């Protein structure tokens, strides 16, 4: 049974008609005027809203008066509108509300979810019109204050260790992180910095969204090391369909570096004692 009705895919909007998408806190209206696509949106809804709804074939003039509007003019007259979900364009950092400790020689799977972007393409040639976050996450900085390149998004996530009662959302993708602590000490997971631009997006048969699983190891002598980053959907997603490729490609060394800082780890469990 489908948990969510997909809000993405190809839609037919004849000239003179409009569509409305309600995806969590985002309200999006797309109107097809002659040789013009008009996109209106506002994303100031409740950030805890996990519903989604699509209405097409509506008359023009549906958009909210307070919505931000942009017009895109195309030379062709195709009626197809494509809406595609994407992962964020920068790493997403989250901090578990309660620190998580992993004792030595334990293997766990952490499920973290990260917010999605959407891309609108119009016409028969699927010309890229616009890309926007469903919710604009807060900026955050990762790394030293004087160097370039540490800008990330911040997102709250529960980082659950089981899928029972996992808060699936139609606008968040779940990444399983399989972590093994091969060191002698207990380590604390204080911070998660997920380099989502290197991950692909999949749709499970029940409509939930996933990225491939990330397999990491922590050894006593080294920092976190990337053991495996598959190219397929995780086993949890079942027979999944790939919706989007990774935004960025990288060789093994760069991936190892990006995922090597995925956890903000701290050795020992002094705080527990």
């Amino acid at each position, binding site marked *: 049974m489908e948990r969510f009705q997909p809000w993405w895919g190809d839609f037919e909007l004849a000239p003179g008609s409009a569509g409305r998408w309600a995806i969590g806190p985002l309200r999006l209206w797309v109107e097809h005027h002659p040789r013009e696509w008009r996109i209106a949106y506002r994303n100031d809804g409740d950030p805890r809203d996990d519903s989604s709804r699509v209405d097409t074939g509506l008359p023009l003039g549906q958009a909210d008066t307070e919505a931000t509007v942009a017009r895109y003019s195309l030379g062709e007259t195709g009626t197809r509108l494509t809406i595609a979900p994407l992962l964020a364009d920068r790493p997403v*950092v989250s901090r578990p509300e309660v620190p998580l400790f992993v004792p030595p020689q334990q293997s766990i799977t952490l499920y973290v979810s990260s917010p999605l972007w959407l891309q609108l393409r119009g016409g028969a040639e699927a010309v890229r019109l616009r890309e926007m976050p469903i919710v*604009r*996450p*807060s*900026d*955050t*900085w*990762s790394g030293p*204050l*004087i*160097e*370039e*390149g*540490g*800008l990330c998004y*911040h997102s709250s996530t529960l980082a659950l260790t089981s899928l029972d009662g996992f808060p699936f959302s139609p606008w968040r993708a779940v990444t399983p992180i399989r972590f093994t602590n091969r060191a002698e000490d207990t380590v604390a997971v204080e911070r998660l910095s997920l380099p989502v631009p290197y991950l692909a997006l999949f749709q499970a048969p029940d409509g939930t969204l996933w990225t491939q699983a990330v397999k990491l190891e922590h050894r006593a002598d080294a920092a976190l090391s990337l053991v495996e980053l598959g190219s397929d959907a995780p086993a949890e997603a079942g027979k999944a369909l790939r919706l989007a490729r990774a935004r960025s490609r990288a060789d093994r060394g760069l991936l190892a570096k990006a995922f090597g800082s995925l956890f903000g780890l701290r050795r020992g469990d002094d705080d527990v004692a």
Partner: protein
Amino acid sequence: MTWLNGIQFEHLLRAAIILVAGWFFAKIASLAARRAARRYTAAQETMIAERVVLYGILSLAIVSALQQVGFNLSVLLGAAGILTVAVGFASQTSASNLISGLFLIGERAFVVGDVIKMGNTVGEVLSIDLLSVKLRTFDNLYVRMPNEILIKSEISNLTRFPIRRLDLLIGVNYKEDMVKVQRVLMQVADANPLCLIEPRPLFIFNGFGESSMDLQFSVWAVRENFLDLKNSIQREIKEAFDANDIDIPYPQRTVHVAEPLPVRVVDKTS
């Protein structure tokens, strides 16, 4: 009339050809130098490489052209030696600017495109030349700053680091609960997407002022969003304070009178 007969005219023509060819060659060589230098150096060093090549070749062309028309260069250089002493005294400022310029370029305190602040002037660096630095201020004025002054003064480079801190100085009424004020401010910072979550916003209770409890609330932003954050977060703080009944007091003064004032009641009816 010897000027107009064969040999002299031919020399003049030769000198003119050398000058024109030299000018073309200098232009092409300087462009090539710019392209080559651009790959390895910053904008102002590229500019200097281009100019050194351009003026070097041009001066060679001029010297050759002068020789062609019969100028004795050793006499000219001898005169130039005496002239240098005189000019040296007269152009102390230019020489000082020139040397300061070389130090500025070597030191790389700022590069073309950075926004710097010196004294009351804030602007984007357009060029770093041998004698002066040219700025464009945000009200679109062209400002020339002599290198000598820049090397002696304190300069702030506003765009060197990728993130900046915005310090907000806020005063709240003495009746307010400071814990509540801190909580409201943190909620405002968390809700603003331009305000960085890390580094965490800083809350400092600065002390007891004349009319208010003074505090400092410092938030971080990416430098491109600095002004947007400055506008949005102050508006949001005001709205949050209004919504939570937190009062920003006006300056006020309580006057205590040492002795009772003699007050005489005037009965208007009498």
